């Protein structure tokens, strides 16, 4: 198996490299040729039909080609999961870069394609940062912000200082031989290599799934330390330029001030751009198609503007994303939100791929390599050691203030996760070789450090995490009760903090929330979005949608959905399209019923469907036909799905109810139907009466509701109450559609109302269970029957007639189970009805 995979792997590799070789070399040749041609073109004798204009398209072509090649590398690497389980993808991409670099080097004898700082900092890095900011878990981030800042600022400074000083000490001690590097240059080198890199951290951590606090600490640190890195690098760069003599207290103070300016300025700029984004999305109701475009453009502008003002571009981009995510997700329509989420992931992933491939390629360059064993090895050693020391010391201090202290194991992983990446390389290449004679040595060292951390530490990370039994990320299922409970906890904590008279975390958060609700939302969110802001409700809505989608796909895989397209069933809804109360209502109720039906078998499945039905009839605020259709679809599928599970003995991911009660109920229903069919065979017109009763029962609920309240809205609300099981006795026993269809004394067939789907289902059901009877009872279906039969015809199965036939049977069977005697409910209903 793995051999085959390897072979495939090898094939693709060969293909890829051959392709590249073929592409690049001829292109290079063509460049030279075309130059000749362009010269010779001045003496053309005839009209050229086709010309090869390479220089015309050179730049964009190469860019596109390289993007393609990087993605192909990723394709090849991901082809075989056995390898990617052990070696992280980033490491493999670097290796792919090595190979490609080797090919190019072989073809050209020079490294024509490198990862230049411009390309890296302006084109490849911003998408990744924007993506991180946009998808940042805000609550977690801000809860741990104190710790993150400590690690980012103090940790990076410590790393830089300790590394620079130690290396300088070793140099003085003679461990590195002859090098022309002064203390300042060591500090500069230290500052650029000290920073933990967000790209590398993401690449390695994404496959290990450590617990979220640990992840946010490392990742947050990698993002926020850019503020420090930029400052340190610029400050030391300036110092190196100025020379040691010029450095006095003033300059140092200026350096410290510049840190605050850069860091806070960058963040502030990010906030401003975030707010701009929110405003824009607030007004884009009419141009929803290019809403996503705004996000990308403004995000990118935030990065560039900060870069222009020599502030921290990464901080700006991150805070732009962090600040705007909530509002733009609320303001934009769902498609735009999905587009933004997905496109950002595409860009970020693509950039990451390219970065690693190019890092590999850039390494294959003889001109930059300077090997100094002492320097390189000492750097590696010191980076490692100082990272751990720094983490332990800082964590020890932090644990005295944290609510949940960081465990030792987490600290180990945090120390180990201090990965350096392309940012360090970019900064190293940006150094001026006139000022820094040993630039190549530093670049080489940086490359080696990056490769070591990404490849070696990346490979070790997964087994290490497993070995140390680090707490993994909990698989977050979106359960409603957890969300509700979390909300309760939040409120509780605010209250307790208030009672115990201290201003804590939660108090602040509460104050911020109030402020936000009062001002920010008013300012930044569309009025329609403001209404839908309740978190618990949103979760509920999402859960409903998820369930609905599941059901529909289940239903589709099961069989024909033709009855869905039956327009007559949807007629009633159209009437109600007027008001726009809660367009999510259908999903809400639909799903409640759904859940009742599938998860809790003893909840008398049919009844929720019934109430659902009622809701459908009386529902307002259905803006889109789609919602209606899917709602109806869902409803159609609810019962059907369950029954089909049972009788086709199929297994699927939805839980099959093996509950005794349900089995009983279904059995009883079948028996009822059989009796009905028997009776109808004898009596002819018997069944119709019952059918209308059946459907009438649906109607019963409507008028009942009407009696209790006036007006459409109240009507549906009260129905909701009864439907949602508020009054089980009422709903389930007397209202149980399938159970007691026969007990409607009222013969008024207000049948145009769509028949409850489970009715339609019922005959499918019965068809499957008692095929023999199909042959027996088939009352002729005349035009007169259509009224009651039409709904039944929703399904294309031929057992329609069976349905009506079976109803009388139910009547008799009813007595056998625990239901209130037939007479009471109908009369009372009738009374109410009258």
């Amino acid at each position, binding site marked *: 198996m793995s051999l085959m995979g390897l072979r495939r792997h090898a094939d693709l590799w060969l293909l890829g490299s051959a392709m590249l070789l073929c592409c690049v070399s001829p292109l290079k040749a063509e460049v030279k040729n075309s130059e000749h041609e362009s010269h010779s073109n001045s003496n053309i004798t005839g009209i050229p039909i086709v010309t090869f204009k390479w220089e015309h398209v050179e730049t964009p072509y190469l860019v596109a080609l390289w993007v393609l090649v990087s993605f192909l590398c990723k394709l090849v690497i991901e082809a075989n999961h056995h390898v990617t389980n052990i070696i992280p993808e980033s490491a493999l991409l670097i290796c792919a870069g090595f190979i490609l670099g080797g090919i190019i080097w072989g073809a050209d004898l020079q490294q024509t394609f490198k990862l230049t700082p411009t390309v890296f900092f302006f084109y490849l890095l911003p998408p990744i940062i924007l993506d991180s900011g946009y998808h940042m878990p805000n609550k977690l981030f801000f809860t741990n912000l104190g710790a993150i800042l400590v690690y980012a600022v103090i940790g990076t400074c410590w790393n830089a200082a300790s590394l620079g000083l130690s290396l300088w000490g070793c140099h003085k001690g003679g461990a590195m031989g002859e090098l022309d590097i002064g203390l300042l240059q060591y500090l500069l080198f230290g500052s650029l290599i000290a920073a933990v890199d967000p790209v590398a951290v993401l690449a390695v951590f994404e496959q290990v799934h450590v617990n979220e606090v640990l992840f946010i600490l490392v990742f947050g640190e990698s993002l926020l330390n850019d503020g420090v890195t930029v400052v340190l690098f610029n400050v030391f760069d300036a110092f190196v330029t100025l020379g040691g003599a010029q450095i006095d207290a003033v300059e140092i103070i200026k350096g410290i001030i510049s840190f605050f300016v850069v860091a806070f300025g960058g963040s502030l700029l990010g906030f401003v751009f975030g707010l701009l984004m929110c405003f824009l999305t607030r007004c884009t109701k009419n141009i929803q198609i290019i809403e996503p475009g705004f996000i990308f453009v403004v995000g990118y502008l935030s990065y560039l503007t900060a870069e222009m003002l020599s502030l921290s571009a990464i901080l700006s981009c991150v805070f732009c994303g962090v600040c705007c995510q909530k509002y733009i997700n609320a303001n934009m329509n769902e498609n735009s939100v999905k587009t933004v989420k997905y496109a950002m992931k595409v860009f970020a992933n693509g950039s990451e791929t390219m970065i690693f491939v190019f890092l590999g390629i850039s390494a294959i360059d003889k001109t930059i390599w300077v090997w100094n064993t002492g320097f390189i090895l000492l750097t590696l050693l010191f980076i490692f050691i100082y990272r751990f020391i720094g983490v332990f010391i800082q964590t020890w201090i932090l644990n005295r*203030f944290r*609510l*949940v202290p960081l465990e030792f194991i987490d600290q180990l992983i945090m120390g180990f996760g201090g990965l350096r990446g392309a940012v360090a390389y970019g900064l190293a290449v940006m150094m001026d070789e006139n000022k820094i004679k040993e630039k190549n040595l530093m670049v080489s060292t940086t490359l080696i450090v990056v490769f070591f951390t990404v490849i070696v530490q990346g490979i070790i990370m997964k087994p290490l995490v497993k070995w140390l039994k680090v707490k993994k990320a*909990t698989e*977050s*299922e979106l*359960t*409603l*009760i*957890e969300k*509700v*409970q*979390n*909300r*309760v*906890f939040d*409120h*509780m*904590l605010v209250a*307790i*903090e208030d*009672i*115990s*008279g*201290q201003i*804590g*975390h*939660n108090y602040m958060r509460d104050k911020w929330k109030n402020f936000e609700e009062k001002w920010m939302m008013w300012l930044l969110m569309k009025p329609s979005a403001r*209404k*839908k*802001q*309740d978190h*618990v*409700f949103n979760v*509920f809505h999402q*859960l409903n949608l998820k369930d609905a989608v599941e059901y529909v796909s289940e239903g589709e895989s099961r069989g024909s959905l033709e009855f869905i397209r039956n327009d007559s069933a949807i007629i009633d809804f159209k009437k109600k399209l007027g008001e726009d*109360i*809660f367009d999510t*209502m259908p999903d*809400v*109720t639909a*799903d*409640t019923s759904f*859940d*009742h039906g599938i*998860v*809790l078998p*003893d*909840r008398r499945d049919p009844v929720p469907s019934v109430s659902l039905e009622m809701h459908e009839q009386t529902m307002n605020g259905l803006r889109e036909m789609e919602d209606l259709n899917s709602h109806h679809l869902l409803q159609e599928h609810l019962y059907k799905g369950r029954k089909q599970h049972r009788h086709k003995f199929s297994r699927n991911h939805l839980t099959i109810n093996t509950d005794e009660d349900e089995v009983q109920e279904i059995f009883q229903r079948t028996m009822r139907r059989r009796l009905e069919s028997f009776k109808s065979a004898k009596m002819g017109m018997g069944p119709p009466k019952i059918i209308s009763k059946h459907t009438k029962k649906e109607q019963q609920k409507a008028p009942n509701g009407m009696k209790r309240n006036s007006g459409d809205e109240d009507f*549906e*609300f009260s129905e*909701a*109450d009864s439907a*949602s*099981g*508020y009054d*089980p006795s009422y709903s389930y026993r007397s209202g149980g559609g399938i159970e007691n269809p026969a007990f409607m004394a009222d013969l008024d067939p207000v049948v145009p109302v769509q028949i409850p789907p489970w009715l339609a289902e019922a005959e499918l059901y019965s068809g499957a269970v008692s095929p023999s009877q199909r042959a027996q009872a088939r009352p002729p279906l005349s035009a007169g029957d259509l009224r009651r039969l039409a709904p039944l015809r929703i399904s294309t199965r031929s057992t329609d007639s069976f349905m009506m036939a079976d109803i009388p049977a139910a009547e008799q069977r009813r007595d056998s189970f625990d239901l209130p005697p037939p007479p009471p409910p109908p009369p009372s209903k009738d009374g109410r009805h009258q």
Partner: protein
Amino acid sequence: MGSRASTLLREEEIEEIKKETGFSHSQITRLYSRFTSLDKGENGALREDQVNFRGFMRTLAHFRPVEDNEKNKNVSNTEPLNSRTNKLHFAFQLYDLDRDDKISRDELLQVLRMMVGVNISDEQLGSIADRTIQEADANGDGCISFTEFMKVLEKVDVEQKMSIRFLH
């Protein structure tokens, strides 16, 4: 501490509270002064509920952060008040107003109503309540018992979510 001799905090009391709740001496005195400032009526108890200082401390003790070394100290005693189970039990009691050890749909609805904005209609809330109950309800009685409550929240980091730092 005021001049009301009857409500002065005595050393023995502080010791008792310390043992029962796990607060430190300074925390207890601090919270006592807070209690007295809240207790404007000077009846030694807060409001109509007549929560005395001991009850006050007991409630607050639920919110202390969970400490591992606690387990070593209180081996023989019952669980400390801020253990995970007790925290969850406190949360459970917030819902269970009639103290029948079950959260019924109505009780859940009440809590939901308090937490949710005015934009959500009653029946939507009802649906949410139903679904919530159904997620947790293992034995199908339509109510959430404490065991079911605990089970459904086993993934939630209760220790962190229900703790605050008490100033020393």
